[in-house]
């Protein structure tokens, strides 16, 4: 069945959602729903999946069939769904802890296989659901409950990882960049193969609070202020200029047509 209005994509009896005041996840879900509504996907032939974490609660609010799986494993479950029914549109919601830490191996292999699905990673740079522990995406020096003296480890660049592992479409935006994000999700769904869209996302409750960034609005403004277009960042690199710390490089990293697994025929 097709949605008549955008709201048809929401499982209304599950709302309101459980996200904290000021959280960016709702904005990101809204952008994804905008995209699937724009593309007029069949609700009955779309499956949303997720692992565990704040972001992973999102499929529960979608009106389609949805599979809320175990921590880190959503992409492996999604591989079974896609290969079982290649005609379905498969969309995975995940977070930085779910995808990059416990699910890291599944992530690189899903990219390598270039399996035809869209992965939206809500990167809040922290474990939100468990109360604010450091993640593989917590920047050096930033505070969390498990990095009380500042994170010491170099974080992942998830987009570079996805490009290196072979995904056909890779982009990064923030929860502030709603139009760009919506368009990236549209492009991601339309591009055969694995599409990876990372979205920097405010988490005022944990990351913002610990690191004195402020409430939701201040945190979203921080994402906007520190965002730099990929083209500019590449130009600066070529010119040998240093990219300032806490910069979020945004834009389209790759759009290509490597061989695809599980594509629609």
């Amino acid at each position, binding site marked *: 069945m097709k949605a008549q209005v955008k709201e048809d994509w929401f499982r209304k009896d599950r709302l309101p959602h459980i996200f904290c005041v000021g959280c960016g996840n709702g904005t990101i879900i809204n952008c994804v729903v905008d995209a699937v509504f724009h593309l007029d996907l069949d609700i009955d032939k779309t499956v949303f999946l997720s692992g565990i974490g704040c972001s992973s609660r999102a499929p529960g609010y979608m009106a389609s069939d949805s599979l809320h799986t175990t921590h880190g494993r959503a992409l492996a479950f999604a591989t*079974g769904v896609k290969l*079982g029914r290649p005609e379905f549109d498969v969309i995975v919601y995940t977070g930085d802890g779910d995808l990059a830490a416990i699910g890291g191996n599944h992530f690189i292999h899903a990219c390598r296989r270039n399996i035809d699905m869209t992965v939206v990673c809500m990167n809040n740079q922290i474990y939100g659901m468990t109360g604010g522990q450091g993640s593989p995406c917590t920047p050096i020096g930033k505070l969390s409950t498990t990095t009380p003296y500042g994170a010491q480890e170099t974080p992942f660049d998830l987009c570079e990882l996805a490009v290196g592992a072979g995904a056909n479409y890779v982009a990064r935006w923030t929860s502030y960049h709603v139009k760009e994000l919506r368009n990236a999700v549209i492009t991601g769904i339309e591009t055969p193969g694995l599409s990876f869209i990372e979205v920097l996302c405010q988490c005022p409750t944990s990351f913002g609070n610990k690191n004195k960034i402020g409430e939701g609005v201040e945190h979203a403004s921080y994402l906007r202020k520190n965002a730099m277009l990929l083209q500019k960042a590449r130009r600066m690199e070529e010119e040998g200029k240093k990219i300032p710390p806490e910069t979020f490089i945004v834009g389209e990293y790759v759009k290509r047509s490597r061989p695809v697994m599980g594509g629609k025929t």
Partner: protein
Amino acid sequence: MSQLEFVQGNIACGKGAIAAGCTFFGGYPITPSTEVAEYMAAALPKIEGGCFIQMEDEIAGIACAIGAAWTGARSMTATSGPGFSLMMENIGYAFMTETPCVIVNVQRGGPSTGQPTMAAQGDMMQARYGSHGDYSIIALCPATVQECFELTVKAFNLSDQFRCPVFVMTDEIIGHMRERILIPDSVEIIRPKPAKPTDLPFGTDESDIPGFLPFGSGQRIHVTGLTHDERGYPDSSSYQRHEMLIKRLVHKIESRRHEIADYEIVNPDAKIIFICYGVPARTVQQLAAQDKAIGYLRLRIVWPFPEEVLKQFKNVTTFIVPEMNLGMISREIERHTAIPVVSVGKIGGDLHTAQELQEVANAYKTAGGQR
């Protein structure tokens, strides 16, 4: 035309799966189970809608099998001890979400890497209790290559019927032993009970088993490993909800354990009764053929444990339980009977010899249970 073949147990499991209509295999190579995956890799692409995928690890193997099961496919994976351990969290997920799927575990010596190429029955407790929380499962134990075929078919039927993961617990000996098997023209196939349009996705009648609504059915269901209500919506805050759900999931299997039970009894009036399952049954059968003073119970389904069957042995003075572990199912038997239970554990990969078992039987024949 039914067909005679000379194959190893692992291949017979694969042939059983194909005969049962399995169209999806996701797995990871591990000795001594790999031939199951290799057989499915060759067979599934020849079947319409068939799909084989070698995943990055066993966690992903069971995960994609569960994902495929939700598209309505008969779905499976195969592994051995270390991989089985890795699968445990997702096995709990399959139980919680009532996902039908089949896991073949070709048991090898453990713990850890242990003896990759030697047989064991050391995963029998892990099969029953390996995942966290309260649950129940179904585990089948073939003792012949023919049974590898038959019990794999049966595993798919039970899995669909009860909507739970089902294990085929073979071992390295059966897995790699070649025997003549008869492959029938067709096998009985029992698919999940379809849901009525008015049914809630996890709502049940008195059967305690919900009808199955695979993805794409138009019912748009939410499936979660969180404690959930009949709609499938998370509700983990109330103890009543959790208790009601878990008791139903356990009850749907345990309340039917005597109906599920599958066993063979020989010479039930004997004083010495061997209780066996899987490959040690072959030695027991050999012994029973020579010594008419012993009888045996051979379980083809070990879990859920059919304790009522123990009452059929009116004259028994001693139960002797040979297992390729240091005593696992012997303890389960002990908790259901007042008759002395003697565990004859053997590990390292060799089967018990008939001589060894005869000596144990002789020791208890006159002692009336007391050695």
